[in-house]
């Protein structure tokens, strides 16, 4: 993966930059020692590492503003960082950048149950947002797998989803307002506690912009009252096609489950070995969860099992109580851990139209043989967001490269099937060079024009999202201007 070479002029100015940053931040908020900056050399895409020039850990919007103003004046690139859980390399540094970590900004600023909102500093973790309103029976809906660790700042940057977004939407559908610091230090307030921010939908374009348009320091989020109850059903099939047809049948029947999770045989096998959840050995397994009162749950599960039975399932297991519900979820929730036990793996994130599911799974199976690497599939079937896990051996020379080439082919397949490169992880560096498979240069140019408005000097996370060749003139313009 190519990254731009560091600008020697910036490296030479490290001392002056540190001095200026220390004038506006407490001493413990500026990290410049090489041994300590190494802790920030990568995010959860650990195959790529590069210690940054410096790390700053501000505690307030005001401090973030000071940092950005100084970096803007000095012409130093800034890579914003939430909790560093990106699987796409969204927070990967360059040697000449300042990492701006928001982890110390984790306060709840306002909880307003009457208006069903919470306002937080964005360094707060996803799960602890729900935690802050849990006693009052409320929750924050987007639930990425990394929710214990990941920060709201990163959720906003990547427009994170989760298992329950079929019903509740992703981050952008639950974000009502933001305090954002622009690269030149200007602080802007967008939206608030009212449902629709006025003017152009700037909140919509900031969410998912991967830290390239500004640094969101505070967010107003929509919270919801918890449903009365929830219960899953587990259904096994002897082919992916039939499982796919069952999903489509359920949706057509007017049932809208909160989650429809799909696992294929390799994934079932690995999860079973790891978590011993008692899953049946079959080709495809669905976990479908519905919500409501006891009688509402019963009615919806009745409709779902009726449709499932018409597809001759090899297994159909309704959770009778909370213990059984937990056992049904146990395997799925440990899928990634299970894979990590047996192999190194790369987790992909393409989305496909639900109707293409059988075709895409069959092609992935064929490609697995061609590349000589195993794949396990686990994904959110209701919305077509796939997570193929390609297994490889990091210690075997060439295996990572083969894995990456295989992954790229799977993502191209998703695009050909009418889908997209990434459903919830973001582009980062990982899918950057595939962007021209989904979009034309003119399509990308329209996106670059947005960045030109928010960050004319192209200093915020500049080497991400777009192929380097496409952004080269803009990034070098910045260097030439100095």
């Amino acid at each position, binding site marked *: 993966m190519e990254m731009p070479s560091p600008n020697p002029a910036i490296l030479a100015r490290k001392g002056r930059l540190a001095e200026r940053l220390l004038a506006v931040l407490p001493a413990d908020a500026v990290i410049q020692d090489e041994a300590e900056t190494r802790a920030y050399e990568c995010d959860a895409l650990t195959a790529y590492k590069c210690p940054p020039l410096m790390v700053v850990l501000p505690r307030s919007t005001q401090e973030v503003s000071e940092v950005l103003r100084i970096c803007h004046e000095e012409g130093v690139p800034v890579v914003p960082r939430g909790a560093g859980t990106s699987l796409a390399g969204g927070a990967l540094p360059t040697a000449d950048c300042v990492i701006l970590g928001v982890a110390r900004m984790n306060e709840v600023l306002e909880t*307003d*149950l009457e*208006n*069903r909102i919470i306002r937080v500093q964005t360094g707060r973790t996803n799960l602890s947002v729900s935690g802050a309103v849990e006693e009052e029976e409320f929750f924050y809906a987007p639930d990425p797998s990394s929710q214990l660790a990941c920060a709201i700042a990163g959720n906003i940057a*990547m427009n994170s989803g989760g298992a329950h977004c*079929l019903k509740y939407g*992703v981050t*952008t*559908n639950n974000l009502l307002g933001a305090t954002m610091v622009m690269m030149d230090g*200007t602080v*802007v307030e967008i939206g*608030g506690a*009212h*449902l*629709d921010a*006025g*003017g*152009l*939908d*700037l909140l*919509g374009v900031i969410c*998912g*912009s991967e830290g390239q348009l500004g640094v969101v320091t505070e967010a107003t989020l929509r919270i919801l009252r*918890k*449903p009365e109850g929830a219960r899953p059903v587990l259904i096994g099939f002897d082919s992916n096609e039939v499982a796919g047809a069952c999903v*489509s049948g359920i*949706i*057509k029947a*007017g049932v*809208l489950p909160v989650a429809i999770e799909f696992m294929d045989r390799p994934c079932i096998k690995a999860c079973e070995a790891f978590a011993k959840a008692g899953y049946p050995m079959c080709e495809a397994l669905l976990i479908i969860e519905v919500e409501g*009162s006891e*009688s*509402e749950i019963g*009615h919806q599960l009745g409709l779902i099992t009726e449709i499932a039975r018409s597809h001759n399932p090899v297994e159909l297991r309704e959770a009778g109580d909370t213990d059984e519900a937990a056992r049904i979820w146990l395997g799925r929730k440990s899928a990634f851990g299970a894979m990590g036990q047996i192999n190194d793996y790369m987790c992909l994130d393409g*989305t496909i*139209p639900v109707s293409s599911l059988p075709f895409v799974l069959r092609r992935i199976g064929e490609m697995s043989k061609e590349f000589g690497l195993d794949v396990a599939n686990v994904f959110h079937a209701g*919305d*077509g*967001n796939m997570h193929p896990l390609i297994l490889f051996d990091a210690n075997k020379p060439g295996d990572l490269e083969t894995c990456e080439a295989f992954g790229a082919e799977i993502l191209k397949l998703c695009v050909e099937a009418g889908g*997209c*490169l*990434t*459903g*919830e992880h973001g*582009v980062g560096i990982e899918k950057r060079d595939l*962007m021209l498979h*989904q*979009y*034309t240069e*003119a*399509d990308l140019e*329209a*996106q670059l*024009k*947005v960045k*030109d*408005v*928010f960050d004319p000097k192209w200093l915020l996370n500049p080497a991400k*999202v*777009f192929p380097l060749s496409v952004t080269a003139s803009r990034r070098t313009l910045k260097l030439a201007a100095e």
Partner: protein
Amino acid sequence: MGALPPNPQNVWTKKKMMTPGSEAELAEAVAGASGPFSIQGGGTRGLAVEGEVLSSRGLSGVELYEPGALTLVVKAGTPVAEVEALLAAQKQRLAFEPMDHRGLLGTDGEPTIGGVIAANVSGPRRIQAGAARDHLLGVRFVDGSGQVVKNGGRVMKNVTGYDLVKLMCGAHGTLGVLTEVSLKVLPRAEASATVTVTGVDLPGAVRMMSAALGSPYDVTGAAYDAGTYQAHVRVEGFQDSAAYRSAKLVELLSPFGLAEVQEDAGDLWQGIRDVSAFHERAGDVWRISVKPSDAADLAPRLEAEALQFDWGGGLIWALVPEGTDLRARINVPGHATLVRAAQGTRARLGVFQPQPGPLAAISAGLRCQFDPRGILNPGLMG
């Protein structure tokens, strides 16, 4: 309808109109013209500006509809009625419940799906299902230099690159002319039940709607009519489920007033959606978006002739004497849109609320990038 102000839409539609028959023709027309253009779908939403009318009505038809994937791809000039009929045949719908502006504005013509999206038009269900922008999966549009651009796609989860889909929704054609939109559709509920609470004043109604929206009963509408002192709370779903939840809501809401269930209140919600209470009345109409709990204190300050509250109090429709600058009376965060007024008032006060400096600069920057010649609905949004 004699009492209504002259409809500005009709003033401009007498002028020249261009109706390209394809996206390529539209792109060519924009590239070759010097403008300015007044972008129009069905011309029912009263947002015309001075200039040659550029109509999307020549771009009509369904590109793809997969009920099992909840996905619809449709050309921008397709009539909303056609889309709704197509979905209804599969027991599905546009869950954001777009308002029909014709009755309120005295316009005629066929509303188009492109117009709904360009103006981000949503109805009472917005509080639960989201706005139009939350159901928009992808767009194709022609920017101000005549370049065709696509963004997003047809799948429900997509974070590939910047979300220009949201940016285009609610841009009112100022960043580009929509040619095609992809939408997430949802199952139509089997049943609907409305709990009506009678004899409740505004502060009580806002607290009551807040209690309903903060309950686990999945409320899809919460509105208050200040004229009749009635608040309405809607639930939807399977028959038994709607009955169960409406009964629970009657229990929950009875302390606020006399609470009763209405089984089929479709006309009531359509009236709330389209603000039918103001249809035959003269005066300017404003649409105000605020934090729901601010509604009760704000309402008397508006000195309005009539008020309607939707979204649990967060959406206020106000009928005021012609020429009133309502924004000057609003002292809480939010914004106000001038939906119906004479041309002079619209020109003087602006349809959309002016934004604070830094946001206005970003918006102006975006307009300049996407429409460098300033020919797409110039002046409409700032």
